[in-house]
């Protein structure tokens, strides 16, 4: 692990948190702009040129609004919920390397050669080189990096649950109930889909995963199905359309944040967008090679230009995913709750499991890596065929339908 330097760590915390919060503020503007463009409108353009100062005005509005705590809420949890949501969203960014990375040196098996440094000395030298390198993660070299992100990510649901429960409001409660069921369901394919990536790299350290991809190929080419499962799960984890049931305005007023106002509402919204940024970083790092772009970034380039280029490449990948988030919102309508659960439990979890088994077999028998791509595509197409063979449709579902006696409303048997 690189030597801990308080000043450097404080600087990088300040930098990362500042950039994330600034990006979140502008994401809200981007969301409104993209929404407007998709609907053939112009979007906010009154504050500053092209509306670029809009986030500042929005933030000021959030600060200055009256902060109402209704009399019927459970005060402790009501106040705790935004902090939990915001805190977990910020914490999970700690291990994400936002720029160039150096892999953790691994011990190697080499015989001692006369006149050369002993393996121990070589190892210590490589460790020293690693310790001297600059990293762009708040907590670099964390061996459980990905696990940490997922653990903190699962904690994020507590913010939603606490907010919904403490508000003492049926809409908030319904929203948080849906959210907890949804997030717990989608945690499973989310975690399982990246197990193949982790096995391939042999490490949970994001820096190690990036370097495994630089030496080989980007994981998205090896495991397109795993990437697809991860992407869909991330949409569900972030409560983005088509999985935004926890805050379906048409059904639940505002969802779990119905009773919140002022800065507490701002924090809940901020947490959601921060979550989007974190997961977009994760997708870039786990499946798209992090800062790696052949022909643009060079491994081991520590010049100013090289480091900046790496940050730019990673940021570009991250913003591409953010753009996808924003566009899909206006493309796919919201899922029904049973469809949401069916997708997670009957489609994505079995597919993730099969993918995991396939990767295991390929790694165990040292098959060439391209078989992984073939395996993934085959699984995907087979799942489609399975759907064609077994699936019904909306008016003729395959599941058992109880014909009600005439006169009774649906749901009464």
């Amino acid at each position: 692990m690189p030597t801990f330097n308080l000043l450097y760590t404080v600087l990088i915390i300040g930098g990362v948190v500042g950039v994330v919060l600034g990006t979140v503020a502008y994401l809200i503007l981007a969301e409104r702009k993209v929404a407007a463009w998709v609907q053939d409108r112009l979007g906010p353009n009154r504050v500053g040129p092209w509306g670029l100062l809009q986030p500042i005005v929005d933030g000021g509005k959030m600060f200055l609004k009256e902060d109402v705590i209704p009399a019927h809420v459970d005060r402790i949890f009501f106040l705790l919920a935004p902090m939990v949501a915001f805190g977990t969203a910020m914490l999970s960014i700690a291990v994400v390397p936002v720029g160039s990375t150096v892999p953790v040196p691994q011990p190697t098996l080499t015989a001692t050669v006369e006149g050369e440094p002993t393996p121990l000395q070589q190892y210590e030298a490589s460790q020293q080189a690693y310790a001297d390198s600059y990293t762009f993660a708040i907590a670099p070299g964390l061996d459980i990096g990905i696990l940490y992100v997922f653990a903190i990510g699962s904690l994020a649901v507590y913010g939603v649950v606490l907010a919904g429960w403490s508000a003492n409001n049926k809409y908030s409660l319904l929203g948080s109930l849906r959210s907890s069921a949804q997030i717990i369901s989608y945690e499973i394919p989310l975690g399982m889909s990246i197990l193949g990536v982790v096995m391939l790299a042999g490490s949970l350290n994001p820096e190690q995963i990036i370097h495994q991809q630089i030496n080989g190929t980007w994981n998205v080419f090896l495991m397109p199905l795993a990437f697809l499962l991860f992407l869909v799960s991330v949409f569900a984890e972030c409560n983005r359309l088509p999985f935004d049931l926890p805050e379906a305005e048409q059904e639940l007023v505002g969802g779990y944040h119905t009773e919140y106002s002022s800065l507490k509402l701002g924090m809940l919204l901020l947490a959601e967008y921060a979550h989007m940024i974190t997961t977009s970083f994760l997708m870039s790092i786990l499946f798209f090679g992090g800062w790696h772009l052949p022909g643009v970034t060079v491994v081991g380039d520590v010049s100013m230009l090289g480091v900046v280029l790496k940050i730019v490449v990673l940021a570009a990948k991250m913003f591409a995913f953010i753009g996808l988030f924003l566009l899909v919102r206006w493309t796919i309508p919201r899922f029904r709750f049973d469809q949401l659960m069916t997708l997670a439990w009957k489609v994505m979890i079995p597919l993730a499991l099969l993918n995991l088994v396939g990767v295991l077999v390929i790694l165990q028998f040292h098959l060439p890596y391209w078989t992984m791509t073939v395996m993934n595509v085959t699984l995907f197409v087979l799942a489609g065929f399975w759907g064609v063979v077994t699936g019904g449709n909306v008016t003729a579902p395959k599941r058992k339908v109880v014909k009600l006696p005439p006169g009774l409303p649906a749901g009464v048997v």
Partner: protein
Amino acid sequence: MPIAEKDVTWVSSPKLGLLGQLYLPAIMDGLSTTVGHIFQKKVTEQYPEQEPKLPPNYRGVHRLNRDHEGRTKCVACYMCATACPAHCIDIVAAPAPAEWKDREKYPETFVIDELRCIYCGMCEEACPVDAIELTTLYDLTGLSREQMIFDKEKLLSVFDVTTKAGTDPVRTKAGALGPASEPPV
């Protein structure tokens, strides 16, 4: 009569094929539509800077038309006041001056309460001499209720302004009053 079971035709949605069950082609199709809209021409009208282009039959603020001599065309026949469903037109008629050969009466006062008016255009329809018209002036504002009560001078000035600006050319033949006012041959 209740609907019998045999009269009901059940229509079922078509089953999804392989491409449909894979979902991705459909999502890509949707995304291309979404992205296509981003680059389409925007429909937003940036109002204060960009004024709307209104059709000439837009029903905005009223005006009293002038004839070729600059007199009001109105002959104080009360048709508009009678037709008005909101009762916002108040006319006081007076005998026309002796040198006005083409009419017997003229309006001494002609007051429209723009706040009561519902801008239906019935006055325009009713007028036999095309003396009252609705213009395309739509951004009518005032600081008090009294300001929104337009008298004859104000309504004539609306005519002057709108014809000068060219937004609302006179829609009737200039000069002669309408057929209703012409003396029988």
